[in-house]
């Protein structure tokens, strides 16, 4: 049954997850750090954990990163 690992992953929660409010507050800082090749995940593990788990914030992050990259490429 292939679905068990997917359900397992979905139900898993990371205690470092900072939640949407904090992630949204610092998203511009995090995105710029990622775009610059900086240690974003090490510096902000709680935001990294959140972006992996939260679809809407992950989508916003992807969009912001694309916008930043569009400025630089």
């Amino acid at each position, binding site marked *: *049954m*292939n*679905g*068990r690992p*997917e*359900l*397992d992953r*979905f*139900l*898993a*929660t*990371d*205690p470092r*997850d900072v*939640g*949407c*409010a904090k992630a*949204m507050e*610092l*998203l*511009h*800082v995090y*995105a*710029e*750090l990622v*775009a*610059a*090749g*900086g240690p974003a995940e090490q510096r902000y593990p709680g935001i990294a954990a959140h972006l992996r*788990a*939260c*679809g*809407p*914030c992950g*989508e*916003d992050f*992807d*969009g*912001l990163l*694309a*916008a*930043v990259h*569009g*400025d*630089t490429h």
Partner: protein
Amino acid sequence: MPGWPYLGSIVTVGENGTLRGTPVTAARLDAESAEWLRALTGAGSQREAALARLHELLVRIARGEVRRRGPRLRITGPELDDLAYQAAADAMLAITAKVGQFRGESRFTTWAYKFVIFDVSAKIGRHFWRNPAVPLDAEDWDRLPGRFGFEPAQEAEWRDLLAALRRAMDEVLTPRQRQVFVAIVLNDVPLDSLVLSLASNRNAIYKTLFDARRKLRVALAANGYIGDDPSRSS
């Protein structure tokens, strides 16, 4: 582009448009961001020109963002373009109202883009309710096997697991957690859309779903249906 070493610069803009550094001054900003701040907090034709330039920039970012998300949306053509223009207009208002809160932690444009990206998200969330695929209070259990990639040929194996999940939902979730879990997981309501229908905010709904996931996982693990959460074992 400017790299991450300048992160942490704290710059505020006074009511008269002057920059106050605490403790870092505007000199720590990259030149382009400092110019944006100077122009937007100034007056006259320079401010008007900066506002026009900012609007143009926000429209470009909003259009790029709706194009990026477009293939996954039930919105197309002129409607998608309208959404981008509305998002840019709303972001413009928010940015000009909050420019004094820009702390120089990133380039000014990155900070500004964040507003328009959030506005695109919010407008897409709102659009969902124009033609929702399912009523909010429905419970579409049939979609769950597909949602988690359970194969029909192996139904005998996963039927028990899903029955246990359903029992756990009834036994361990609060009514609010159940409502949020059903809407997002069973009915595929986007989180941002659910935020609107429950008059809540993204953080609160995410936290409710987070707690529901954690409780369901504990319940399923206690009965041997799935393993212990590896993130909690250390």
